[in-house]
């Protein structure tokens, strides 16, 4: 049996389950709700970020509230929660088989355990990519249809970046690509936890808890965590997709078209995420190969 045959079977199993489509439905619903809220009350949302500057500047509310801005807002809100949807599928990959009693039968098939784990990981990665494409369709294409296109304004804690509409699309492509990297890493973590569990609930909940704990550690901004844990925490680097929307500027404050504020940091974040993914998948393979399958 070839690796791709196993992958095909795994993909069939993933997309046969109704729970797979819960994620697609939930994402479409959440995005539509956010778009509706911004269509109705978008100016209030923008005012939250610009309130301190209303005395000094004319705030171009109508211009800011465009499809690109709405898409970034949607991704900002939704990508924090997507790890749960990824864990829902990836956490079930091995533990689900153990729970339903098919894992032992699977181990008797003419396929190595390494190939099996890799095929399950690849199937999870395909699921993540399809989920992101779905998200892109609703968040980017949908928002552009509803709100139109204009320059993109990105609000940060201490500054704001205005990116020309001609310099935006490639950033979204890169950001979705980076988000895929981050979510595939979450899938790898879920599969690793799934190897040690006998039912899928454990790895799903554990994955979500790990993500929440590290996100809280990151957001607490405690100096001791900032210097020790946060630089290596995967939740820090999972936010790397936002880095594509931080532009560099000249000494006169003019944005440099096609620039990224700190591309080296993004490369580092990407490599760290790949490193985590490799470590999780490698450990999962090692653990599964030694696993005494009793279920």
């Amino acid at each position, binding site marked *: 049996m070839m690796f791709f045959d196993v992958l095909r079977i795994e993909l069939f199993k993933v997309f046969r389950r109704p729970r797979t489509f819960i994620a697609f439905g939930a994402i479409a619903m959440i995005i539509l709700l956010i778009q509706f809220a911004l269509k109705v009350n978008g100016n209030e949302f923008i005012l939250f970020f610009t309130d301190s500057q209303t005395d000094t500047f004319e705030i171009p509310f109508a211009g800011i509230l465009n499809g690109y801005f709405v898409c970034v807002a949607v991704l900002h809100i939704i990508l924090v929660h997507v790890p749960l949807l990824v864990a829902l599928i990836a956490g079930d990959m091995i533990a689900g088989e153990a729970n339903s009693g098919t894992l032992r039968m699977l181990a008797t098939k003419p396929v190595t355990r390494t190939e099996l784990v890799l095929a399950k990981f690849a199937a999870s990665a395909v699921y993540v990519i399809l989920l992101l494409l779905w998200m892109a369709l609703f968040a980017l294409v949908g928002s552009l249809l509803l709100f139109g296109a204009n320059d993109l304004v990105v609000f940060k804690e201490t500054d704001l970046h205005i990116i020309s509409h001609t310099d935006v699309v490639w950033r979204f492509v890169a950001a979705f690509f980076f988000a895929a990297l981050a979510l595939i890493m979450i899938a790898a973590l879920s599969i690793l936890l799934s190897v040690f569990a006998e039912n899928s609930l454990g790895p799903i909940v554990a994955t979500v808890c790990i993500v929440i704990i590290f996100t809280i550690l990151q957001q607490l901004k405690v100096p001791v965590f900032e210097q020790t844990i946060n630089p290596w925490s995967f939740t820090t680097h999972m936010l790397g997709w936002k880095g594509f929307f931080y532009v560099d500027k000249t000494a006169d*404050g003019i*944005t440099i078209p096609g620039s990224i504020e700190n591309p080296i940091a993004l490369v580092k974040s990407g490599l760290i995420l790949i490193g985590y993914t490799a470590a999780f998948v490698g450990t999962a393979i090692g653990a599964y190969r030694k696993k005494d399958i009793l279920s």
Partner: protein
Amino acid sequence: MKKNIFFLLFLLVQVGSLLASDPEAVVLLQSVKKKYDLVSDYSARARLVTNVLFIKAPVSQVTVYYRKPDQLLVKNEKGISFIPKGTVHINMNNVLGLTNFEAVLSGTETVDGVSCKVVKVFPLSEEESITRATLYIDPVQLVVRRSVVSTKENGTYSIRMKYGTYTWCGLPSVVEMEFNTRDYKLPKGTTLDYDNGTRKATGLPQKGKVLIQYQEYSLNKGLPASLFR
């Protein structure tokens, strides 16, 4: 007693003459205004460069609309620009159009290599948004080359103007405006920023600059009032 009253009257006359407008300053302002009055409205294509510590913005192509006496609008038709509210002060009619004011000539200073007369203008009406203005007037070309306008609500604006083809009607080719800004800071955790190691420069003055380079004026074609609403 009689002596004291005379002394008081003398003092009042002296103070009054100090507060009264300097005739030379008034004549100079009127001459400049006469030149500015040649334009009743204009629209101009311009390049806008924003330099504010906390804003990263591309160079924008804007249209500046002006309608007599004090309506001014800067519009970015194809993109987004954060236009300072004080941009309205690049229109000198805001100061020259005052009717109830005191003007004092306060020496000579060189602006961009041109010797200018410094005129300080103090509006007397409580309703004016301007509290005082200092104009650096080129007495040969009869144009304002620099102005410092203090407002009641939005601080002080320092504006420098360079002239080219439209000097004959007092319209600049380049305007550089400096203004006060407030610090921009959102509560921690609201934007979940990606930490890419870039730190914000601290201790820098909270001043913003806007540069408007005019490319093409269209004069006295008649602009509707509705445009400025």
